[in-house]
């Protein structure tokens, strides 16, 4: 069973990964839409992280566990995609999945 600290750690990893890779992701973005997608991903991951840190994630519930597993899997997918140098379109899809999973995890933890 994941702890509140585990969940915060996953959400943190999603944000830091997006932040540190933003230069490379933007370098691959050749259209305004792709740029906007990269920026939105970082902004959402950032907002989710600081909200999670402030909430301190103090409780756990079954729904939280599912969201936690999803967030972990999504982050792993993003990392795999980066190392495989997948196209920016594919990568953005996985980035979006990871950030959304982080947001869901935060929501589930807050509701628990």
């Amino acid at each position, binding site marked *: 069973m994941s702890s509140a600290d585990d969940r915060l750690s996953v959400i943190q990893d999603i944000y830091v990964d997006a932040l540190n890779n933003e230069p490379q992701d*933007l370098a691959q973005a050749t259209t305004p839409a792709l740029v906007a997608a990269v920026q939105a991903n970082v902004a959402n991951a950032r907002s989710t992280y600081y909200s999670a840190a402030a909430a301190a994630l103090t409780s756990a519930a079954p729904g939280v566990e599912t969201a936690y597993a999803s967030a972990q899997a999504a982050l792993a997918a993003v990392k795999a995609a980066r190392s495989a140098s997948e196209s920016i379109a594919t990568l953005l899809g996985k980035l979006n999945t990871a950030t959304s999973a982080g947001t869901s995890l935060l929501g589930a933890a807050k509701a628990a």
Partner: protein
Amino acid sequence: MLKTMSTAVARTTLDRRAGTILALRSAAAAALLGTVTACVTVDHNTAASLGTAGMQVTQALSTQATGAVQTLGNLNQWWGVHDTLVCVNVSKADAKKACIAGAASPSQDPSVKLLIDVLNKSKQATDTLNQAYSAFVDLAHYNAGQEATAALKTSFTDINSFLSAASALPGAVAVAPISATIEKATAGVVGLIADNKQNAQILAANKDLQSANDALYDGLSAESKAMTSILMTLQQERQALYQSGFDAGLINPTDILTPVFAEAYPGLRLQTPTVEDRDVVKAAAQNVLTLQDKQTNAAISSSYAASLSTLHALSAQHQKLANSQSLNIGQIQTEVSNLKADISQMSSSATSSTKK
């Protein structure tokens, strides 16, 4: 008639004074007996060392919280700069224009404000304990026995001065001044009483400090992982800002390499690299940044937990002081030194990120 009255007043006064001296002697004997039967011993130097260690640990925790609050307060500005500068990585003109437009003026995140409020409360609690430890050090350093003895000596001098003056009055009977032996014995007893009272105060304060220490430890340790996460993320924000300035060409790689060469060869002045070799110099500077970031991140991840651990260790020393056992202040001082080194590493990183 007038002379007779003044002589009577002087005699009455002398009688009272003689009674006071007798009472003082009796009190001294009683006090001596009481002191011997209920003696409270405290090593003041040890207590002061314990208090100093408490001040240093709470100061370390406060410094970390202060740094975090300051960084959180700057985040909005940092994001505004970083999110725009990072657009240098976009190659297509229309995409770059969209990137710059999309980065304009990020709004204040309400969660950041909430974090600032929470950290300020935590810092306030830590600072209050720091002040309590400071007062404890003052209490331990204060030599109550010596102060009381000095005050009593002044009072004896005043009494003898009075007796001398009174004996000069017409018709007065000469009263022997308080002898040096009595002065010494009584002063010793008063000193013991004062010391005993002070030691009791030190022990009471020690108990209160231990309770406050335990309460702060419980509160801070409950949020330890979250706090470490925040400190680490703020460091990542700092590094991302710096990296964006570096990538945008705002930061001169030579400035980053200068201190590295200065350590190996003091006084060396670096030249501006040729245009062809600038990418190589920039890569070397990037390696320095990466290594510095790793060191700082390692310091952050360990220092907060270490601060709490040291705070907790202090509680055990409070208990030893209460039990009149010997304290292991040396170990705590070593831990505090390590903490200071970690915090110094983090501070130098912050300085290098903003001033280089």
